[in-house]
């Protein structure tokens, strides 16, 4: 199986505070990997390091066999990875359609027509094709997040990173976003997800990674991690998380 991202000995500190300690982690094509752990365990930082929104202080990030930390042009790499944020971060100055086309025309140098076709296709996938004229401020949280997913998909990336995509949503809107994500997972998209939705993680993931205090404690299939955790820390966390 083709490995898309392979992380070796990754370290990240903010000043003297070590957030990631010697993290080793890899993702294969078509795999859905969910990172779980309590707040402050470093799981969001790990995700942000993968597309270099945070620059690691040590280690390697290999993308298709090449260490991208040795490269100077990071934007070339970033366009291959999509990112969905907790706070949606749609471009406030553009309408829904333009949010999904601006990256394609500016970065992938596609024509406007082509970009629109791709965008419409993915807006249909997330069920937001009727709202192309709306501006972000006019949408609900769930709608914004679905547009954000369409925006990431429109770049046709190798993988999409989801950074707690439902944590800022009202409870009744969590479902619509998770439903879209489940469909994407079933369609074979490579996904790396950070979430607190345990049931959802168990249902859609190929692999679960449990992090605690900046280290990966457990990495295995959902059955393995949820039903038969090897480490005491995992057991304690799951007991609290699953209630």
């Amino acid at each position, binding site marked *: 199986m083709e490995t898309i991202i392979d992380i070796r000995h990754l370290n990240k500190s903010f000043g003297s505070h070590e957030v990631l300690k010697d993290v080793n982690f890899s993702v294969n094509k078509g795999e859905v990997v969910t990172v779980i752990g309590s707040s402050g365990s470093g799981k969001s930082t790990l995700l942000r390091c993968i*597309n270099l*929104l945070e620059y690691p202080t040590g280690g390697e990030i290999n993308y298709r066999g090449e260490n991208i930390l040795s490269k100077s042009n990071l*934007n*070339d790499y970033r366009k291959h990875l999509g*990112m969905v*944020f907790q706070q949606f971060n749609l471009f406030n100055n553009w309408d829904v359609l333009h949010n999904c086309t601006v990256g394609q025309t*500016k970065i992938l140098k596609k024509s406007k027509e082509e970009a629109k076709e791709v965008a419409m296709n993915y807006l249909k996938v997330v069920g937001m094709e*009727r709202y192309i004229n709306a*501006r972000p401020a006019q949408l609900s949280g769930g709608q914004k997040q679905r547009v954000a997913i369409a925006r990431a998909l429109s*770049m046709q990336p190798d993988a999409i990173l989801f950074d707690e995509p439902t944590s800022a949503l009202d409870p009744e809107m969590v479902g619509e976003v998770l439903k879209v994500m489940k469909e994407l997972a079933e369609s074979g998209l490579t996904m790396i997800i950070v979430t607190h939705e345990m049931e959802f993680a168990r249902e859609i993931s190929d692999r679960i990674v449990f992090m605690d205090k900046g280290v990966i404690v457990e990495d295995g299939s959902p059955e393995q991690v949820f039903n038969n955790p090897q480490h005491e820390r995992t057991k304690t966390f799951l007991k609290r998380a699953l209630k």
Partner: protein
Amino acid sequence: MSLEWFINIITNNWPMLLHGAWMTLVISTIGTIIGALIGLIIGVINTIPKMNVGGFRKNALKIINGLLRVYVEFFRGTPMIVQAMVIFYGTPLFMQWLEKAIGTNFGFSGDMPALFAAILIVSLNTGAYMAEIVRGGIIGIDKGQFEAARAIGMGHWTTMTTVVLPQVLRNILPATGNQFIMNIKDTSVLNVITVTELYFQTKTIAGANFRYFESFFIACIIYLVMTITATQILRFFERRLEGNATYQMIDEAGITRPKNNE
């Protein structure tokens, strides 16, 4: 003081007053636009991320930012009337010195037409203030906007031009309008370098008819008309940038239909 004098002054001097008002508008409008551009460019340079740029670029960036700092501090920290004198009378001296020192003045003697000097001074002055306004505007944009742009693969320049600056422009429009109004009024100090703007013209008229109050009262009204008009025009742009309050939904057939405007 009588109404007759007002009418007299206007009927005898209206071409001079009109010319003065026109010059005031030209200098303040062009000066504000160029100044805003200077401010935008400085704002963009100031916010280039320092993360993982190489040693040479990092140092170049430091030097440029240092020079820009000096420029902003100088023009914000000295009165425009003094800058006008220093630049207007100092440039020819500087060019003379330059010719002696390096043998060429690049074909520029340093003498400039008063109008050119006026626009230059107002632009540089406005640029210094606008640089701070733009910087504030960029800092005020949500960090997530930058991150989303970066995550898509945009560099600093593309992020700025497609995502950040359009939002900044909207936010700084009121402050820019303020600057424009101030420029309309403050161009009056440029009479010291013999620019024939409204104050200079009024002074000339009053010097001939000795009716200082009446002449300057007329100038006062003209200034007020210009500033109020400018305010209204800016309000219009602000409203336009707000965008529509509602949006259109697209139905299955792909036809847009109006959304209920509850």
